[in-house]
């Protein structure tokens, strides 16, 4: 079994002294494996991701990179991981081209490889967009550029915050397949927050279900319908979460809960996960 590359022990976090949004969250991630973080909106998924990425400081708890506590590092070990924010957080005011955007990081890490931009854009499948303005790209293309940027420093861990947000079913599948390719090619560990339950369960070895104070973390084989219902605070019928079930029919549809308005599907006849009437 691969060694643990990232471990969180009893992480808690609250904004400005309010009720904790995260309480005693523990999980681990092994080299070359992936951890899918599921849960409803406002459940603390992105907050947890930002804590791991060093953008927020946990109120309590400890984080270990390669079994070395953060407190033992002189500086935050940014070199070990790459964080991919949601593409909607990019500032579109400046006319930045794709190649210029990648060059910001290449210059920062002082990498001397004139072919690197072409290689990265080839990897993510948008080499024809090299000279395009980032602001002119579609959501999926922007996300691919962000993933290309994340691979510049060959990270041990890839942290992805809702990479499929705003993409259609095809775009979501293509992007998650790309992440799977990178994982296999480089042995990169992946921690991914996403709303696409089916795809996450399919592609991740471990699942972290998170809803504020409550969380569940284990191998995906131990995930049950009850656990997901508890996390999402709603009941599902025909919840078939294991790979054999997912492969059986169309995996593109999402679950639907009242609090996930932005993910409301066009129909309620979901083949796998459907809210009870």
């Amino acid at each position, binding site marked *: 079994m691969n060694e643990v590359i990232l471990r969180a022990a009893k992480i808690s976090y609250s904004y400005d002294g309010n009720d904790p949004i995260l309480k005693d969250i523990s999980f681990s991630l092994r080299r070359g494996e992936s951890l899918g973080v599921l849960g409803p909106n406002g459940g603390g998924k992105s907050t947890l991701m930002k804590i791991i990425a060093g953008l927020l400081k946990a109120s309590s708890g400890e984080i270990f990179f390669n079994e070395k506590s953060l407190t033992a590092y002189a500086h935050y070990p940014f070199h070990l991981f790459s964080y991919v924010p949601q593409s909607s957080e990019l500032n579109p005011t400046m*006319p930045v081209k794709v190649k210029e955007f990648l060059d910001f990081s290449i210059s920062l890490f002082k990498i001397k490889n004139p072919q690197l931009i072409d290689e990265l854009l080839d990897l993510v499948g948008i080499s024809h967009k090299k000279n395009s303005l980032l602001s002119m790209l579609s959501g999926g293309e922007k996300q691919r550029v962000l993933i290309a940027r994340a691979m510049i420093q060959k990270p041990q861990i890839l942290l992805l915050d809702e990479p499929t947000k705003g993409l259609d079913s095809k775009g979501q599948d293509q992007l998650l397949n790309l992440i799977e390719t990178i994982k296999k090619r480089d042995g990169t560990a992946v921690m991914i927050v996403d709303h696409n339950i089916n795809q996450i369960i399919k592609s991740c070895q471990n699942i972290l279900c998170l809803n504020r104070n409550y969380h569940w973390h284990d191998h995906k084989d131990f995930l049950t319908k009850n656990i997901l219902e508890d996390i999402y605070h709603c009941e599902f019928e025909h919840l078939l979460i294991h790979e054999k079930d997912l492969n059986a029919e169309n995996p593109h549809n999402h679950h639907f809960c009242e609090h996930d308005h932005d993910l409301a599907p066009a129909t309620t006849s979901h083949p796998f996960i459907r809210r009870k009437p």
Partner: protein
Amino acid sequence: MNTFFSDFFEYDFLLYALLGTVFLSMTCGLISPLIIARKNAFMGAAISHSTLLGLAISLSLFEASQALLVFLSTLMITIFLTLFLAYSTFRQKLPNDSLIGIFYNATMALGIIIHTLFAKDQSDLLSFLFGNILLLTKEDLYLSLIILIITILVILIPMKKWLFLTFDEEGAITSGIRAQIYHYTFFVLLAFLIVTSIKLAGTILVETLLLVPGFFALKFSTNIRQTFAISTIFSTVFAVIGIILANAFGLPSGATLAVVLFSALLLSLLIKRVYDLLR
């Protein structure tokens, strides 16, 4: 018309004003696109308005003729106020504009009261509010050159880091860029630039020099290099035209610069609109 130009070579103080305008407008042109892209336009207004408090205190302590002492004292007070604002607005959850709005009204009000009660010469304030090239000295020219050199060193050389932070702040932080240092550096530089530009443009109108060139450049440019080049050229050309007109017609320099820059922006937007329609 010829005297418009010959004046600048005949009188030393006008030559200082002209060269000072070139240096300051180049600096403003270089920094302007970043101010807009980083969404710091209102912050710039807050710093420029809060210089009035620094000025009021300085003019209570020194005579207006003690230019360097007034400058240094105003600069120190403004940097202190700016650091407070920068600290209060770094990656905060609440929108920054409310605090900035409260802050700049309060400091400006306090400045006016202090000036009314304690200023050694009540007549100076108007010149500082709207700019007066007659106040520019040789020292101001050196200061303008210093701020240009500092801006080139601080902004132009590590430009990719500034752009990375501006375009994707979280990505930049997690790539190891220390955003907090850049945040404070940017505002201290802005405070320095604004205090240096007060005599030329005035505390109320210096914002025009900081915003119009960048706005123009971001509207018309198609890549990053072009953005900064256009902003700097636009700023320098129209600031020089403004200062020449201010001298020719005896107008306040800040107001003339503001009107010239704004007119150039408006005219170019109009021409672009007509061009787009005809195309």
